[in-house]
Every structure is written in C-alpha cells, then in structure tokens.
C-alpha cells in the first residue's frame, strides 16, 4: 500500500511539473511574451521596459528555472487589468463562487443517480430506465450552455421569473446553474449504476442473500449496491473534473462570478498573468481530484493497486 501511495504521489508531482512547463511555454508560443504581457496600446519602449522589469530579457533557461520555483507557490505576477496578484484574484473567484457551483452540481449528479440507477436496474424497461436512457442520449448531444439558456427561457422568462436568470448569492440563484451543470453527468451516472447493478445482481452471493430470506431492500443496498459502487467512485471523480471545466461556459451563461468567467473575461483584455494562474489552478484541481480518486480506489479495492500499472 505504501509503495502504491508513493508511486501515485511521484506521478502527481511529475504531472504538476509538466503542467507548470506547459503554462510557462504557453505565453511564449508567439515568441515575445512581453508583447502579450502589456497593454495593447503600449509603445515599443514600454514593451522593452516591461521585458526588463519582468526579467524576460534573461536567457530562457534562467526564466524557466525561476518560473519553476515561483509558479507552484502561486506567483504568476500581477494582473494587467487590475494590478493585483493574479493568483489571488483567481482564488477569490474560485472560493466561494466556483466551489459552490461545482459542489452543488456534484451532489446532484452523484447522489440522485444512486436510487434512480438502482430502480432502473431492478425495473428494467420501466419508466426510470427509459427516461434515463433518453436523458443521457439527449443531454450528451447538446451543449450544456444551451440547456442553460433553455432553462432560463422556461423558468425566468416564460414562467414569469420563477427562478432568477443570473446573479449570485442566494440558494435560488444556485438552482438553475447547478441543475444545468449536473444534468448530463447525472443521466450518465444513472446508466452506469444501472449497468453495474445488473451485473452484480446475477452473482451467487445475491442469490444466497435472497435464499437466506433477507428483505429485498437489504439484498439490493447492502449486498448488491456495495459491490456495484466501485466504478461509481471513478465516475464521480470524472464528473467533478467535468464540472470544473463545465463551470467555464455555465458561469458565463448565468453571470456567475467564478473563475471560469474570470478566465473568459481575461482573454479579450489579454490579461495573461490571470489566464496563466487560472489554467494552473484548473489543472491542479484536476490532478488533485484524480489523485484522491486513485488513492480511494486503491484503498477500497486492492486489485486496483496491482492493475494500475498495467494500463
């Protein structure tokens, strides 16, 4: 177990290094980062001064080593638009706004599918089964932001402002964005739990449990669901990753003051320190989620520790 944890940790550190390197080279894609890091109206002298001030006139490897030591500590320089530390701005938008939205959506997408998936499996070709099949097909085939627009059209416009179309602060404001973000993974998770349950229900121990005369509820939730829950953990992790990137468009639709909207707004102003900091934080959250899921999986299922190297 310790070897497994250590291996996962080393891998995560490697990925973080890769992420920092990508973010470093990102602003150097066009050759001159100084031109990107100043105002669009800057004169040539101002660009030169910025280059010197930010140390961009030093050799590339010196800049790289410097970046490797400062970026993981959250130092991405100062926002061009707001003249404040870029990472602090990103964190202020992540917490609480983005975290609230992503967690609310995660709860919807992970908790609701448990009973729904079990019902879909135990009542094959029933209402829940059909609805979840259609739902997952349709929801995967539409952009989430369009679903958001349609929900606004329905709840905020057609139903005369039953729910607010945008803004942040109260629980009512949270409902539409969270439902929009959760809809597609929710439907997909119902399908996954269903297929996991269908497989498990065929096993001998389920038959034994029934033969012992246990109540059907106990058989299903105590014996079957527990064994179907393994893959579900991975899926929850994937869902959380999906939610994090989904927040970018959803926050834009609902004017939600989170880091997704921050990065989108930073693009036209070419606020590269903010873009870099946000990209870095997004990637770090992704890596952290994957690490936690892998470790939990390893704790719950010893087989995962052995197999994880094979893939």
């Amino acid at each position, binding site marked *: 177990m310790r070897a497994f944890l250590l291996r996962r940790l080393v*891998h995560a550190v*490697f*990925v973080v290094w*890769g*992420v920092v*390197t*990508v973010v470093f080279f*990102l*602003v150097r*894609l*066009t050759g001159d980062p100084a031109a*990107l890091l100043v105002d669009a109206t800057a004169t040539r002298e101002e660009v030169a001064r910025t280059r010197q001030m930010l140390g961009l006139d030093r050799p590339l490897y010196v800049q790289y080593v410097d970046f490797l030591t400062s970026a993981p500590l959250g130092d991405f320089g100062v926002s061009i638009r707001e003249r404040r530390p870029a990472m602090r701005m990103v964190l202020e938008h992540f917490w609480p706004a983005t975290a609230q939205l992503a967690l609310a959506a995660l709860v919807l997408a992970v908790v609701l599918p448990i009973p729904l998936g079990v019902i879909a499996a135990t009542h094959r070709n029933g209402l829940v089964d059909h609805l979840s099949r259609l739902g*997952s*097909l*349709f929801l*995967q*085939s*539409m*952009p989430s*932001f*369009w679903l958001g*627009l*349609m929900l*606004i*059209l329905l709840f*905020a*416009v057609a139903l005369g402002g039953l729910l607010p*179309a945008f803004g942040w602060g109260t629980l009512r404001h949270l409902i539409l964005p969270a439902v929009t973000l959760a809809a597609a993974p929710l439907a*997909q998770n119902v*399908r*996954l739990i269903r*297929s996991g349950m269908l497989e498990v229900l065929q096993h001998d121990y389920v038959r034994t449990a029934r033969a012992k005369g246990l109540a059907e509820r106990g058989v299903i939730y105590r014996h079957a669901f527990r064994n179907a829950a393994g893959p579900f953990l991975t899926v929850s992790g994937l869902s959380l*990753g999906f939610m*994090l*990137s989904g927040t*970018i*468009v959803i926050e*834009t*639709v609902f004017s939600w003051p989170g880091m997704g909207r921050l*990065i*989108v707004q*930073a*693009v*036209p102003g*070419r606020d*590269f320190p903010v*873009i*870099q900091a*946000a*990209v870095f934080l*997004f*990637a770090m959250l*992704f*890596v952290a989620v*994957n690490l936690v899921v892998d470790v939990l999986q390893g704790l719950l299922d010893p087989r995962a520790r052995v197999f994880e190297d094979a893939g």
Partner: protein
Amino acid sequence: MRAPRDRVALLGLAVITASVLLAAVAPALAPADPVKNDLLARLTPPMWMDGGSAHHPLGTDTLGRDVVSRLLYGARVSLVVGFSAVILAGALGVVLGLVAGYYGGRIDDALMRLGDVQLAFPALVLAIAVLAVVGSGLGNVVLVLGVTGWVTYARIARGETLSLRHREFVEGARALGARDAAILWRHVLPNVLPSITVVATFSVARTIIAEASLSFLGLGIPPPAPSWGAMLDEGRNYLTTGWWLALFPGLAILAVVLGINVVGDWLRDTLDPRLERGL
C-alpha cells in the same frame, strides 16, 4: 432489441447526410446573405407568428440577418471543424500510439507521460488559453482542437499494438524482412482501426460541441461569420424579445450531434463490442 437500434442508427445517418448536403448547397438554398444586415427587419419573429414574414422563415437576428441562412452556413463551420479536427487528432494519435506501442522503451514512456500531462488540463481550458495567445479563427480552432485531442487515440493504438506485436503474423512479416513502417501499416493498423473509428465518431460529436462552446465564449469563429455557437452567444441577450435566436441554433446542434451519437452507438455495438458502453 436489434431491429430498433438499426433503425435509430439509420435515422441518425440520414440526419448526418442531410446536414452535410444542406451545408454543401447552402449558397443555393439560403434565402438571404447570411452576413448582410437589414436593420429595418431586425428581430422579425418566425413566419408562423404575428409579424413574421415568409422571407425569413425562422425570423431574423438583432442586425436583421436571416436566421435560416445563418443556420445553413453555420452548419459548414460545425461540420468542417468537427471532422477536420478529429481527422487531425486521430492521425496524430494513431501514428504516435503505433510508434509507442511497437518500439516501447523510452519513446513509449515519453509519449505516455506527455499524454498524462495533457490530460491534467481540462480540454476547454487549454483550448481557451492557447486561442488567447494565437488568436481565434477557423484554422486555429481546428488546430487547437485537433492537436489537443491526440491522447485517447494514442492510448488505444498503443494498447492494440502492444498486444499484437508478438503475434505470429507480425513476427512472420518481420522474419520475411518487412520494414517496421510496412508492418505497422499493413498488419497492425487494420486491427486498430475499428476501435479508432468508434472513438472518432463520438469525438466528432464532442468536437462540434467544443467549437460551439468556444464560439459561444467569443473565442472560436469571429463575427460576422455564422457559427451556431456564436449565434447562441448573440441570442442569449435577447431571450425575452427574440427567443428564436437562442432556440434554433441549439436545436441544429442537438440534431447533428444526436445523429452522430446514435451512429456511434451502433458502430460500437457492431465493430467493437468490447468498448465500454455509456462512457
């Protein structure tokens, strides 16, 4: 269960064919110029509503441009980006995956670790950041979505190659003196293609949605060129006065992507039943 699935897939194929045809003959079909403003006719509702006009079957947008025409031309953007980005990603990924799986060792390690790093970025975040640097536009969107999409293909191609490289027919070809490239091309690639085709089909669907998302955020196809995502971006500020602007481009995306997804489901069941369902 077999027959209805086939029928649904056939319907999906019909939708895809129809959209390709409509996109191809857009100039002949479109009732108006998709980028020509007509401020006097702005926000004309669809023809079946009060104030609608037969000249604009699905109404006009805030600059008086004809919605049907913009949808037809927008199909070109979605389909071109969807297919060319996936072809680029697939070609890149398959070549790298074949090489990694066949030669193993350091090349394999380096490529797979590179894939790990790439997957640490949410795809949309990486696309936004790169487009912010290199600028938006059709070519850049295809490049970004194509180049960042290689990992899945590489992993599949690598896995298949690993399991094939010591099989008799590959060893035999090698013993007969075939060059590595020829072995990969003639003996390994054909075995990789079924899984790749299935994954690529779903990728076209996802790429069309990704392009729409980027254009919706103002980072994809720059105005005034019609793109379904950009049309939704324009429409979202007029939900109370021009609901049709937010409805129709979304329905267009839904129809095409749904068509591709059901064909993908069918391909998966037919070509590669081993691939996981529902993911």
